[in-house]
């Protein structure tokens, strides 16, 4: 859980307002509360993802159209949530409705590629300046592929991630994510503290942590682990801590350090890809990594993710060194949504 410092003069009034508006929130949503009680008997915690749990209670959705969504109580909202940054196209966009409807009428799954997969990968290559792509189903899978690729290519065990950055919930990256200050260790040598249960220390110890926007400290940490370090994974714009843009020259500096030290560089653009510019932060800041991970907005509301890379990196998929696999990878419905 996030740790905060409560020290402002606004504190008492904030507490009063929160109390008042949480009561109003609950009063406006009795149908959501009823569904939550029903769901708690068959859905663990009454939700389909723990990220859906929030105070004062979960909002159950009904429908969306354009910029608006409605909950099961009939309350209408301007949707700036976008389903955690997915709905860049808005809800029920006619082009998405047409493409996905046409696709499902012709069959929705073959575990064989469809033409849309080629078209989407061509467009991603154009936007991100990386020639070869594969698809998966979630951002977690895309960053997992990136980590696996960095290890497979280098033959080294360790990766470096940024303190506080979220890259999905696979073992290697659930390290120093939402930990409190008391667990983070010294600022110049952040601890590889695990951020979830069920992940062995032996795995999280292989993830080295460095602070964001601090190239000097990062390079010193790289030096300490250089013999066994495969690469660096970073959100080019840190986006699970509000929005923290890269300092001037930071991304180019990362590119330079990783090249100089023989490390691979992966940009986790699950949140920034397509949303901060059509070609993500890669295009916006003009720094091209070895690997890019995409998800969220890519599918227009249909679950899909992608991992793209240089000829050298993705050649290890081409030659079978690394098996990037998945029954639903490039699912026809998903690439139809992406292709609009």
């Amino acid at each position, binding site marked *: 859980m996030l740790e905060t410092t409560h020290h402002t003069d606004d504190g008492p009034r904030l507490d009063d307002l929160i109390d008042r508006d949480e009561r109003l929130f609950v009063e406006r949503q009795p149908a959501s509360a009823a569904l939550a009680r029903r769901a708690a008997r068959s859905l663990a915690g009454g939700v389909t993802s723990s990220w859906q749990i929030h105070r004062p209670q979960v909002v159950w959705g009904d429908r969306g159209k354009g910029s608006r969504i409605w909950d099961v109580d009939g309350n209408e909202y301007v949707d700036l949530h976008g389903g955690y940054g997915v709905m860049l196209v808005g809800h029920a966009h006619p082009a998405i409705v047409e493409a996905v409807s046409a696709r499902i009428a012709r069959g929705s799954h073959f575990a064989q590629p469809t033409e849309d997969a080629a078209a989407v990968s061509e467009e991603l290559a154009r936007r991100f300046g990386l020639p070869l792509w594969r698809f998966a189903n979630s951002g977690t899978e895309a960053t997992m592929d990136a980590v696996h690729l960095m290890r497979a290519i280098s033959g080294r065990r360790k990766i470096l991630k940024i303190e506080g950055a979220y890259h999905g919930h696979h073992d290697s990256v659930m390290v120093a994510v939402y930990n409190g*200050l008391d667990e983070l260790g010294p600022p110049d040598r952040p601890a590889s503290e695990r951020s979830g249960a069920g992940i062995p220390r032996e795995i999280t110890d292989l993830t080295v942590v460095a602070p964001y926007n601090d190239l000097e400290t990062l390079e010193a940490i790289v030096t300490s682990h250089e013999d066994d370090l495969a690469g660096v994974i970073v959100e080019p714009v840190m986006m699970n801590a509000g929005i923290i843009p890269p300092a001037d020259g930071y991304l180019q500096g990362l590119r330079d350090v990783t090249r100089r030290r023989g490390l691979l560089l992966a940009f986790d653009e699950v949140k920034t890809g397509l949303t901060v510019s059509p070609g993500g932060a890669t295009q916006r800041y003009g720094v091209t990594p070895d690997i890019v991970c995409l998800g969220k907005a890519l599918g227009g509301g249909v679950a899909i993710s992608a991992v793209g890379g240089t000829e050298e990196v993705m050649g290890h998929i081409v030659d079978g060194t690394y098996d990037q696999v998945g029954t639903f990878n490039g699912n026809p419905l998903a690439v139809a949504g992406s292709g609009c």
Partner: protein
Amino acid sequence: MVEGSQSVVRESGLPAHVVALGAKGCLVFSPSEVRNYRDHLAVDDRYSHCHWLIQHNGGVFLPPWGKAEQWLLSVQHSEEDVERFLENLAVFAKALRPQPTGALATPGRAAEKMK
């Protein structure tokens, strides 16, 4: 969206600033720049939760876990949508930094308009 938010923040004296890139943006409830995760931890998350509640009750659905998340403007959002967000932000600011009467600003005015 950005200019309007900055204007409300400036006029109200809220301890906040706006960060936006492309279709994404957020209000950071800190008067100073946040450069890394440790800076982020120091931000009082009651501001963002209170803001989230007032926006929600006023008919704007921002992402939960407001301190950590961002707004997303889609290709289908309109000026009217932005105005509703800014109106709610002003309600929040006024409620937090009230006029001399000390009365809490009425929440959910925008929501009432939708009925």
